[in-house]
């Protein structure tokens, strides 16, 4: 690997939740930390997210969910990634994720649940330190 290697990150808003302030601020912070960021925009279905992962080959996928639909949508996304033999991408979810839901999401392969009040630099460091490849 030469020093030209950049970390590529997908920032996604799954489901119907339209609260994108955090996702956008995060995208900017990741860019400022030297990463290449694709923001998928709102209203992403699991299929759309997986298609984007298949084509863009990101190192990390950051899901932003504030509507409470995380327990329904995250497993579907993880299953579809598995079906497509994608197992080397860091998948993280942030937003409004109650503590008691975290073990369930961890079982499905998600990591790092960053909610309100998290410093951007914490998330940036988390991405840098938890890549799977």
């Amino acid at each position, binding site marked *: 690997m030469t020093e030209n290697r950049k970390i590529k990150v997908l920032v996604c808003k799954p489901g119907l939740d339209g609260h994108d302030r955090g996702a956008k601020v995060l995208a900017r912070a990741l860019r*400022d930390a030297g990463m290449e960021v694709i923001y998928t925009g709102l209203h992403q279905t699991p299929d759309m997210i997986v298609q984007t992962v298949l*084509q*863009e080959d990101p190192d990390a996928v950051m899901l932003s969910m504030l509507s409470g639909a995380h327990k329904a949508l995250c497993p579907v996304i993880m299953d579809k990634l598995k079906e497509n033999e994608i197992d080397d991408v860091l998948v993280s979810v942030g937003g409004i994720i109650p503590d008691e839901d975290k073990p369930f999401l961890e079982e499905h392969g998600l990591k790092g649940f960053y909610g309100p009040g998290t410093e951007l630099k914490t998330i940036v460091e988390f991405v840098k330190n938890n890549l799977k490849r």
Partner: protein
Amino acid sequence: MDYSDLIEKLLNGNSRAVARLITLVENDIEAAESIINAIYGHTGNAYILGVTGSPGSGKSTFISTLTKLFAEQGKKIGIICVDPTSPITGGAILGDRIRMKDNFSLKDVFIRSMANRGQLGGLARATEDAVKILDAYGCDIIIVETVGVGQSEVDIFKSAQTVIVLLVPGSGDDIQAIKAGIMEITDIFVVNKMDLAGADKKISDVMQMLELKMNYKYESESHGENNLLESNWTPEIIKVNSRKGENFEHLIKLIDKHREYLKNSGVLVVYQKNRIKSETIQILKHKISEKVEGLIHSNPTIDEYLRLVMDKSLDPYSMANLIIKLLGID
């Protein structure tokens, strides 16, 4: 490293392999060498379109509409969207994908976003290699999209066969920018958003700009093979409405016309030769500068030269000549 597994998947039409290989050529020039080595024989089938325009000219909608029509013709399309890397942070927001239609089927359309990563030289190399990968994957058409109409865009489009520049009715800034940059290599000028006032004025502005270019050409002398390049293709101008798909059949006819022209006039061959030359020069530049940098940092003879330059017994130009001798390429 052995990439044969991925390459086999690529040649069998596996999308994930495409994505993985593009990542490799972006990040690792040694990998790029092995990969291109293995797939080069499978390239040459795709037709490559370059599309650019100023911000706000509606490139993404334009490309979406064009892609949809190509897909309806049963073609397989690859799209590479290039966005600028921030010179300050080294990062990039790759924002073209989000503007494309989101209901293309995976088997018809492959979209990939790339950052230009700032440095000249490496800039077009990764895009070039990504184009080859999509070519080997089986794309009939590959669209390379970038933003801006300046000199660096000329570099990106070295591998494009037809270059399309988008304009919008309104201020004349884009004409000025085009004159200074990409005018020389544009094959089709498209005035997008033709429903807006000023569309026809924009067309006549383009024609005026081209007349100036034409007049200049007649007065200058050109010789040999390269004369063919400047020859008989007069850039076409067309207006469209991307949102409504208006006038796109005509546009596709123009693209086909250009494609035919390139084949029949022999220009395509000249052009391909030039492209291969410049690609190779780029690779050479990269390799040589790597070698030189390695040398400068590690060779004791260089330290000697450095001392002499610091003492003013030698100047940097002379030092460079000595290094060329050292490398054996004088």
